[in-house]
């Protein structure tokens, strides 16, 4: 199940919890809400992505990314 990240518009950052509830109602399983960074993270069906974008107060919807270090070897730039 894809992990989503949502950046909230500045105008909604004060009531980000209420916006998180709206996203829950759409089907997002909210994992974390961070008012400081205006960000909400959660998981849901892939088809949910477009729906989340349409919610009033949502600025950007993206997929949660990851990083991977290379092997700890002197020949390999870290």
């Amino acid at each position, binding site marked *: 199940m894809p992990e989503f990240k949502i950046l909230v518009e500045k105008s909604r950052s004060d009531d980000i919890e209420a916006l998180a509830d709206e996203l829950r109602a759409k089907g997002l399983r909210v994992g974390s809400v961070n008012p400081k960074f205006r960000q909400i993270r959660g998981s849901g069906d892939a088809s949910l992505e477009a729906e989340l974008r349409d919610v009033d107060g949502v600025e*950007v919807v993206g997929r949660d990314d990851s990083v991977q270090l290379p092997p*700890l070897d002197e020949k390999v730039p870290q």
Partner: protein
Amino acid sequence: MSTVAGALKNAAGMKTLEARDFKGAALESALDEGNAIYFERFKMCVVDPKEGMSQLAMLSALESVQQARPEFYMFAISEAERRYNEWVRAGLMLLADGAPSMGAQALPVRAAEMTVAGTPIADTNEFTWGLIAVGASRSSLTGRGVKVAVLDTGIDLQHPDFVGRSIVTESFIPNETVQDKQGHGTHTAGTVAGPATSTMGRRYGVAPDVDLHVGKVLNNQGTGREAEIINGINWAIDKKCAVISMSLGRPTAVGEKPDPFYEEVGAVALREGSIIVAAAGNNSFRDFNHIAPVGAPANSPSIFAVAAIDPKMGVAPFSCGGLNPDGGEVNISGPGTLVYSSVPRPELSKVLQGTSMACPHVAGVAALWVQSDPALRGQALWNKLERTARELGIRRDFGRGLVQAPGMGPTS
């Protein structure tokens, strides 16, 4: 061929075929099917790593592999640009050899720490070359009282150079403690804050007396989710860390814009008095004229991107360049090849290369600046680091130049 074939089979599940057995397009089809094609005449294998750069790095680490690099499109660095870089570097070497130290806090430069024009700076019995290059070896500042966060794979708390030391720790990885099993975090934390007198030999910590905060955001396999990294940054800001060192990232494409999520995080951090220092990335192959753009999150305008240089003051061949607009530039450079630092027991120390090694040099120097003037926080610290860097060459590769401890670089 049998040695390589066995290694590729074990490490990547690839079957190795002899190139001489193929003609024309059949060879490409064999590659598409996941095979490795071996050219006996050149002692070279061509593979199509399905997992991208991480698999390439894994292949590089194999004992029977001398070098693994991608095939790439070439574009030229102009002859004039190359000559300018050489000219600037040669001039700086001359200056470093003869110039008096500047600034009230500079201690007398010792002959053993100086470089001879045109020759690389080397580790001495007392200091690593990185500490000499950034001026930490000649500074009376140690970072005392300054909070610095290293967000990485954790730290070996029982390492003889860290055991008994007061370190604030937090793991953001489910079911894993902050104890470092991978090694990367112990190395980067060592470069920031290894002790003034190491149990192992020469000093390798830029700012040995910082109030070290270690957040584990990458697991014991070296993998981390963005959510965990963001949680780590949030924690470091809440802890009032002046500097947040992040030797991590992912490659970006030419033309790719910065991630708005990291951009917001970096902007908040600066407003709250924390500078996020991040590795620019290692995806260039400059020996073959291939330069890759600065990776994410270092490509965010609000995050300080660090390139890597070598002991001759040249850009490291793997170091990413400022190709992308809107924040994808290099801000500064730090020592990033032949970097000696701590790793978890039983190995204790290791020499590594990468912008991951350059980044904590900059973080450590940033802490020295905060100690010199506690008002230097956030954007003010950013500006000070840039203005006092020692210019090395074009900004695409070096940013403002080599980071310098207070009193060691140009005055501002």
